[in-house]
Each structure stands twice: as C-alpha cells, then as structure tokens.
C-alpha cells in the first residue's frame, strides 16, 4: 500500500469507533422509533406491526399536541432569554477576570457534580410552603401564611434556568475569551466610550457564542420532562411529558414514537437553521 493510500485511509480508521457507536446507539434506535411510529397499539397493550398512518394523523392534526408543543417552545424560549440575560454578565466577568479565571470556571462546573434531579428537587426546600424563603418571611413577620411559589410555570422556568445557565455561560465565555482585546482598546483610543465599545465591538463579536448557548439551552429546555414533573403544576406539562405518558402510562409505544419524532423534527429544524446561518463550529467550541 502506498503512503498516500495509507494516509487517505487513516481518518476513516480513526473515526470508525465513533461512527460504529453513533450508528449502533443513535441511528439504529432512531430507525426502530421510525418503524414503531407506523405500528398500532391494540386494546390489550400489545403492538400490532404494520404500516398505519393513524399515529401520525393524530399527532399532526390534534390541537392538543399542537398546543402543548407551542407551550413547550414558549417555556424553552423564555428560559433561553433568561439564561442569556443572566449568563452574559457572568461570562463577561469570567472572561475578563485576570487571576481567578480557573476558580470561577470551576465554580461554574460545580453544579454538574450533583444529580440534575437532586438539583431540581432542592427548589422544594427553598421555595416550598415550609422552605427556607417562606420560613424566613414568616419569621421576619412579612407574612402569616406561606406564599405559594412552587408548582407553576415560573417555577418550571426557574428550574430550567438553574439547569441550563452553565451551558449558556460556557458558550458565551468561549466566544468572549477568543476576542482580541486590542480591538476594544482601539475603539476606546478612537474616542468610543466603554459602553459604546461594548455595543459595537464586544457584543457583535460574541454573538456566535450567545447564539450557540441559546441553541443549546433551547433544545435541552424543550426536551426536558423531569422539571415540569417536579416543579410544575397540573397544567404545566411539556411535550416530552406527553411522550413519557404515551409510552409509559398508556403503553402506547407507536404513538409515543410518532410524538418523539415530531419533537425531534421541530428541534432538528432549529439546529439546521442555526447551522445555515452560523455554522456548527461555535457550538462545538462551547461544548468542548
């Protein structure tokens, strides 16, 4: 074999374990889900194999699914916005700090060491009727009765922000850290105020990181089902809860498959849009 042929083969050899893993763990299960979505659930709970369009017809035409999907996108959108507003200043401080950058990054990573479910449930001890805030308010005398702060849409958004904020900060940080600070100095030396320098130099250059963080926060937020279960009220279900319910409670795997593919299509379209305008490179940097 020639040296050129060996070199041409090398990337495929190196990539093959990852490609095998992606094929076996992602593409094959996805193919199963596609096949399942055309099956039917019988009255006893067993599946009837075949090619039926009933699940897709129901998923696409029923206003119930459409409404919950829109509500899910709304909650994910609000969460992303809150993460961006809260995450940008934090990322800016980390990127511009001199001596303690490593410590700040470590603090940012700290929540990942605790289970997501535990972190979500911890809000019950903070915001619950006998939680820390209500106990403090009653003790100070501001209120006699506990204030209802949990089990509503706001507490779901809070739980999601808690979960997703580090992803947003990391992506913005990567973007800010890559900006050549002499550009900011140049703007200042030409008479721009610090605020104007930020608006016209720093912010535009960090937008790819903001967009990458936004995409991650949105996609992860829209796909969650634990947070609404733990922190949501009776009417705060998100689309992933419908998938869970169809598959687990109703034992309707075919309908659950159609619903999960529907969510995948919507979120996949967003990722494609992002890739079209900004490319996936920034997202990879943030994840790395």
């Amino acid at each position, binding site marked *: 074999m020639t040296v050129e042929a060996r070199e041409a083969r090398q990337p495929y050899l190196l990539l093959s374990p990852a490609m095998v893993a992606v094929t076996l763990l992602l593409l094959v299960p996805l193919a199963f889900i596609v096949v399942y979505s055309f099956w039917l659930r019988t*009255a*006893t*709970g067993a599946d009837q194999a075949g090619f039926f369009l009933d699940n897709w017809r129901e998923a696409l035409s029923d206003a119930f699914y459409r409404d919950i999907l829109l509500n899910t996108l709304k909650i994910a959108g609000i969460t992303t916005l809150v993460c961006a507003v809260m995450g940008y200043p934090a990322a800016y401080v980390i990127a511009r700090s001199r001596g303690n950058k490593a410590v700040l990054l470590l603090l940012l990573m700290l929540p990942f060491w605790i289970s997501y479910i535990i972190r979500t449930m911890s809000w*019950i001890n903070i915001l619950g009727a006998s939680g820390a805030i209500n106990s403090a308010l009653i003790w100070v005398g501001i209120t006699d009765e506990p204030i*209802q702060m*949990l089990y509503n849409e706001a507490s779901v958004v809070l739980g999601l922000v808690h979960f997703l904020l580090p992803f947003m900060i990391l992506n913005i940080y990567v973007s800010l850290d890559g900006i050549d600070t002499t550009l900011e100095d140049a703007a200042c030396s030409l008479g721009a105020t610090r605020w104007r320098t930020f608006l016209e130099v720093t912010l535009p250059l960090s937008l790819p990181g903001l967009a990458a963080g936004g995409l991650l926060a949105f996609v992860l937020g829209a796909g969650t089902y634990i947070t609404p279960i733990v922190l949501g009220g*009776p009417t705060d279900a998100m689309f992933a809860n*419908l998938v869970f319910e169809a598959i687990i*409670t109703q034992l309707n795997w075919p309908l659950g498959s159609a619903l999960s593919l529907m969510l995948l299509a919507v979120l996949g379209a967003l990722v494609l849009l992002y890739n079209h305008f900004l490319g996936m490179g920034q997202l990879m940097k943030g994840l790395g």
Partner: protein
Amino acid sequence: MDNTKRYERLRERYLNGGIDRRSFLGLIGAAGLAYGVQTPFARGALAATGEVRFDGWGGVVSEAFRKHAFDPYTEKTGITVVDGTFGGGDEYLSRVKASQPGEYNIAHLSGVFDYARYHNLGLSSTLNEDNIPNLKYVIPKLTDVFRKVTGGTLSCVPYDYGTTGLAYNRKHISDEEMKEKGANILLDARFKGKIAGWSDWRTRIWYASLQTGQDPNGATDMEAIWEALRTHRDLLLKYWNSGAELMSLLAEEEIYVTEAWSGRVFALQEQGHDIGYMDPPNGFGWQECLFVMKGSPMEACEELLNFMLAPETSIAVAEGQNYPPALDPTKVDLGKKIPTLPAFDPSGTLDGLTFADPAYWNGHEQEWSKLFGRIQKGY
C-alpha cells in the same frame, strides 16, 4: 483445580523451560478466548439458579421486604434477591415489555387489573402450588379472583391489601368535616391550592365516580366524571407521582388533603404527623400480589414466595410496610400491630372493601387513560 492454579502451573512450566514462549502465550490466549465465549452463557445459567430479581414500590415498602424477607431468605438458601423499584405499575410494565424473558422475575403488583394486563400481554407463568405450601394460609377470596383470570392456575400469590382513602391534615380539617363531606372534600374550593391527587387515572376516575354519586365499578354518566376531574384539577396544587412525594407533600404541609395509600399515611402517623385517614363509602380497596413473570427460574421463585408467605415473614413484612398481609386472620394469629393497621379486616372475608373490577377497568383503559391525560393538562 481453579483457573489461578492452572495459570501458575503453566507459568512454572514456561519458566522451567518446559514449553516455549510462543506455546505459553498461545495457551494463555486460547484460555482467554474460551473464557470470553462462555461467560455470557455461564452468567445466564448462574442467574437462573443463584439469583432472583424482585421489583417493588420502593421506600418503606422495599425496606420492609429487604429486611424481613430477602436478607433472611438469602441467608437460608444462598440465592441472592436483586431488588429494584418502580414508581407505578404502568411504568414497570413498560420496562418489562422492553426486556428479554427472564430479565425480570417477581413483581409486587397492585390490583387484579394489573394481573390481567400482564396475563393479556403473555407475561404470566404457571406456579406449581405444591412448591408453595404456605399458600394455605392465604385468604381464599384473594386467590380466587386471580384464578378466574388465568383459567384456574396462578401466576402470583396474594401478599397484602390496603385502601386508597383520604388523608387530611387535622390542623386544618376536622374528623367531623371529613365524615360529612367524604370524597367531595377534594372538590371543596375552600382548600384551593392545598389539595393534591394521585396522577393515576384509575384512582382519579374512581374518586370522581364517588363525587358524582356513581358506582365506581360501573359509572354511567362519564360526562359528569370528566367535569368532576376538571373541577378537582383546577383546585389542585399538583398531582403526585410516588409514595415518597405523597408523604413529603403531607409532611411538609404543602397540602391539607389528598387521596392516599393507607400504609403510607400510617407511616406518617407513626412519625408523629397529625394526619387523619378515612375510607369513604365505596373507597378504593386493592390487593397486591407477588407476580412471577414468564421465563423466570420457577423453582427459585416458588421457594422465595413460599418463604415470604410463611406467617413469621409475612407478619414482619406487613408490620414494616404497614399494609395488612394476605394471611387469613381466622387461620393465623397476626399479632398486635396488624389489627391496628388501616383497612385491616379481622373477619378475613374482605366484604367491607370495594375492589376494582378488572374487566370494567381494563376494558376502558385505552380510552380513559388518554382522556384523563388531557384533562390533567388543562383540557
């Protein structure tokens, strides 16, 4: 001779010059290959005889099973009991459906309707009752209903029973008010935001039947039931999903009233919480069983079931999990604590409890579980 000794002998021969390096490495490689090939099968064979998997409801119930049944059983027989937990029968059925035969062995199922569902999905086995002599202590009525489903044979043994009644915080709701309002307390607007409910569609429809004055095993006006469910939903703080969440909501005073599992409320009372418990007329009675899945190591499972039905084990577990055992009180002395447990029937006839009719509930499962799912989410 074990593998370590074989290796040491081979190595000694190699070091003494008895075999060359190539043969030594070749033999080691061949041994490794043989071990790798046989291991999956050996593990399956070992699991078939030396290990039984048990899945239950978690929390205080699992603790009682582990302490009073599984540990002594393993000590006596050498068979390990691997215990897993689930939050509800639906979730567990999904896991079983996705598994290979033999992966799951025994489950602590609730209600005859679950037994029928598992049977209809082809998951039932046939127990050899000769291997379970302690079955003679069980209340006959509890066994008969299972036999009807599986054509005279059994795929489970009844183990305990209880009720899903009403739990209420006595600081805010008196016993008299509960007696007066019964199931309708869950629709009392005075407690808006302090009411909860189990997310299980059967329980919700059962209680809506009581609230609308209908037979829970034969409602005729379903529109009234859906309306009652909507009213309840609008007054609700949240639907709870597990026994642990139920106990937390009551103990933390997040809620004042909900329907609740009798044993869990008793556990709260034992912890000193002033929580009352009441079974309204036609309250939801249920029995739980130990169901053996098709493909399980039957003899080991039957041995475990017999051990668990032995009066000393069964009574200890019942006292631990706070649900009366399936043992007939006219045949077995159940001690002092069990007669004080909620739902306990000293006659052994269970005539005072209303159980779910499996044909009625399973016949409507597909339609009602879906409809309730929608109402639950605000529709």
